[in-house]
């Protein structure tokens, strides 16, 4: 049994990276390994948007990540600088920046890049999807 860390840097519906990462995560778990965490960086931060509304008969990636979290308690960390730049923020960040709306909520957590490096340090295997 090993700890896997995943880095996702592709945006939903413009890159196949999030789909690959999700399939990979499920396959890793099926093998009896653990996923220590998923870190969203670059355009990957869009995966965390709760305002994502794809057609009903298409996989909602945001919800798929939450399901993964709910089933396996996997942390979903989002780079705060990459997110804010792209218009993704939590309620508290929205207040801090004087914005009217927010689109990031638990279990997605806005966090610093230090978390990415920490995830890489403590994962036996670290796989990037971009």
């Amino acid at each position, binding site marked *: 049994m090993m700890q896997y860390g995943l880095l996702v840097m592709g945006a939903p519906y413009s890159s196949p990276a999030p789909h690959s990462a999700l399939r990979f995560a499920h396959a890793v778990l099926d093998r009896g390994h653990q996923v220590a965490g998923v870190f969203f*960086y670059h355009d990957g931060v869009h995966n965390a948007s709760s305002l994502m509304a794809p057609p009903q008969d298409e996989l909602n990636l945001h919800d798929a990540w939450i399901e993964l979290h709910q089933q396996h308690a996997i942390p979903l960390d989002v780079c705060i600088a990459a997110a804010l730049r792209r218009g993704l923020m939590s309620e508290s960040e929205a207040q801090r920046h004087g914005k009217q709306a927010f689109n990031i909520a638990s279990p997605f957590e806005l966090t*610093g890049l230090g978390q990415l*490096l920490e995830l890489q340090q403590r994962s036996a295997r670290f796989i990037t999807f971009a």
Partner: protein
Amino acid sequence: MAATNALLVIIRHAPHSSNWLREGLDAALVAAAFGQPVHLLFMGKGILALLKEQGSGAPGQKATLPTIDMLEMYDIDKLWVTKEALQNMHLSTDSLVDGVTLIAEREVAGLLQQHTKILNF
């Protein structure tokens, strides 16, 4: 060179094309800020980040050069570039900032093997 615990950050994207370059450099800076030794390998168009005559601010984005200059303040002093990549772009070392180390393309594979941690941008 023996195995190293330094983080190798590979930079492959040019300034003013996407945010890959800036976000790659940010990752390098954060690692260094946390005290991790960081080495940089510039491949392909990533080399354009090292051109010393880059203007500032154009077009409406932060310039890259000040960040490249700032690397030494984070004690990031290994900036590798391959001779072949320079030749492919018809560039000479004179056009690059100081402190760049030229290596041969065949050394790249070895460099990756030596680093236990790698982030590829």
